[in-house]
């Protein structure tokens, strides 16, 4: 393998790898910015987004692209339900930050194994009506992967504009920075929180279904991603969408570079985790 094919493969495969991660990290970082805790149950939002799409696509026979919309809406709804039923009452009861994280682990277990009871231990695949293979910089990719990347780009830019350029986004940021001040200014915290949890849940669901469309859907899809998602959000800077974007691209490129060099894909994750622990130390991030 020459250096130029190595570099172009790394770049193309890396960006493919990173695309769903960007969505997952954006949603995660939004909840983190608003409520200030690591929501491990977010992993299950990713998984269920993929399952919802499987229901519409494989079981009901919808077109893959048509099933994206109900899947995104349903996973947004799921996120709102977990917020209303579990997290909001817990904030009100004054559950501490560490206990909240452990609580979210409980929610994660409940949803993951609950969905395994419903869906069984099987793996699911999406039905694509037509798959064609294309070459990008000499690297073989499918048209589905390219469309997914395009959609991810559109959706991330959309969320970015929503948060930084619209009235609602401003309210959202105000609430995250100082809840009391925001309330005095006439911002309704419940409405804004519901909106954030909905957007975060939808982008988690989208991440899950795109990730699943590259390989297959299993009940541990989100769980396998969550550690890297948390790391990306922490390293990229809490609440920073640009940071999440850069860190996700970095993850994708490092993973694909290590994968091209070694036979075992676990080495990519090991290298990443070590780099991330190092970054945590160097930046002394206040997560």
């Amino acid at each position, binding site marked *: 393998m020459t250096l130029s094919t190595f570099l172009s493969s790394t770049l193309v495969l890396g960006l493919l790898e990173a695309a769903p991660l960007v969505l997952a990290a954006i949603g995660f970082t939004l909840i983190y910015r608003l409520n200030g805790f*690591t929501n491990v149950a977010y992993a299950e939002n990713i998984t269920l987004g993929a399952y919802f799409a499987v229901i519409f696509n494989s079981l009901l026979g919808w077109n893959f692209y048509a099933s994206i919309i109900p899947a995104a809406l349903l996973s947004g709804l799921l996120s709102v339900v977990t917020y209303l039923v579990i997290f909001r009452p817990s904030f009100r009861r004054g559950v501490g930050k560490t206990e909240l994280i452990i609580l979210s682990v409980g929610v994660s277990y409940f949803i993951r*194994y609950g969905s395994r009871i419903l869906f069984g231990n099987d793996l699911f695949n999406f039905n694509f009506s037509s798959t064609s293979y294309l070459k990008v910089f000499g690297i073989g990719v499918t048209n589905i992967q390219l469309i997914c990347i395009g959609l991810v780009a559109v959706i991330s830019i959309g969320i970015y504009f929503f948060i930084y350029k619209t009235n609602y986004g401003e309210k959202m940021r105000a609430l995250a920075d100082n809840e009391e001040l925001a309330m005095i200014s006439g911002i309704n915290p419940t409405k804004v929180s519901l909106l954030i949890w909905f957007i975060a849940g939808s982008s988690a669901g989208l991440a899950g279904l795109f990730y699943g469309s590259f390989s297959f859907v299993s009940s541990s899809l989100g769980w396998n991603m969550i550690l890297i998602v948390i*790391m990306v959000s922490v390293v990229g800077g809490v609440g920073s969408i640009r940071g999440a974007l850069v860190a996700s691209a970095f993850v994708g490129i490092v993973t694909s570079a290590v994968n091209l060099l070694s036979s075992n894909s676990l080495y990519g994750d090991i290298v990443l985790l070590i780099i991330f622990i190092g970054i*945590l130390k160097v930046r002394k991030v206040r997560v």
Partner: protein
Amino acid sequence: MGLLSGYVIYSLSFLLIYIALATILHLQFSITGIVNFGLVGFWGLGMYLFALLQTKLALPFLPALILACALVGMTALLLGRVILNLDGQAILVGTLAFATIIEYLTTTEKWATNGVMGLGTIKMPFDFGRSTDQVFFLLILLCLVLLILYTAKLKTSPYGRLLLSIKDNEVLAQSLGKPTFRHKIIFFTFTCILIGFFGALSAPLYNYIFPRMIGPGVTFTIWIALMLGGRTRLLGGMIGIVATVGLFDYFIETVVPIPTQYAEMVPNFKFALYGLMLILILMFRPLGILGDKKKEGVK
């Protein structure tokens, strides 16, 4: 000893190991406030190092145990130096990442660990014929009793008070001239060695060890148990483990007859129920089954 033979004694030995791990987690979390989400990493490291030293280097039981604990201690010291002065959530993510790295390394480093094929056979330290398992059970019981006595003593000792003061207000403890970071690292290292020690003791019980045994499920099961039993209480870990692992892995899987076609669904129900129990406990009885006792700890 008809009742305490074979599978029963094996399950009870693991119950004791889990109780020990929950007690150590209680030490780390309730006394110094360190959120260790990488418990299984230290446990698995102790287990694998011990197994490697015994099978590959043919070391006898005690030297292998001591060396494994020392290596776990060095790893803990290194990790502690890197992450312990960061804030709570960074420690949580860092330890979780550490445990994941250990799990992956046991899979990838096939030359040492045989990867997913499993490493074995790991021998018991002694041979008393048919009662070897019972004697090993008593050895674990003895270690657990010592651990619980130490935990009870620590809470009222001056050193325990120092650690509690770091947990409650680290800046205040610093201003009194206490080297808080150093104490945190030393205590973290010490407790991680204990975790590794019980990991090493688990290896002969398992006989054969696999990477999937050291997945994050172990850490979260023990966290759930500790929260359920009562994280601020000495016996909280024990009560929680009996109510979770004891009830499911021991009672339901061995005593209750489950038709074979449903057998693979049992773990799903188990973990879903663990999750539900944890949610209900944290929302409605945050201090666990045992709750709080006013005299406990230093106010």
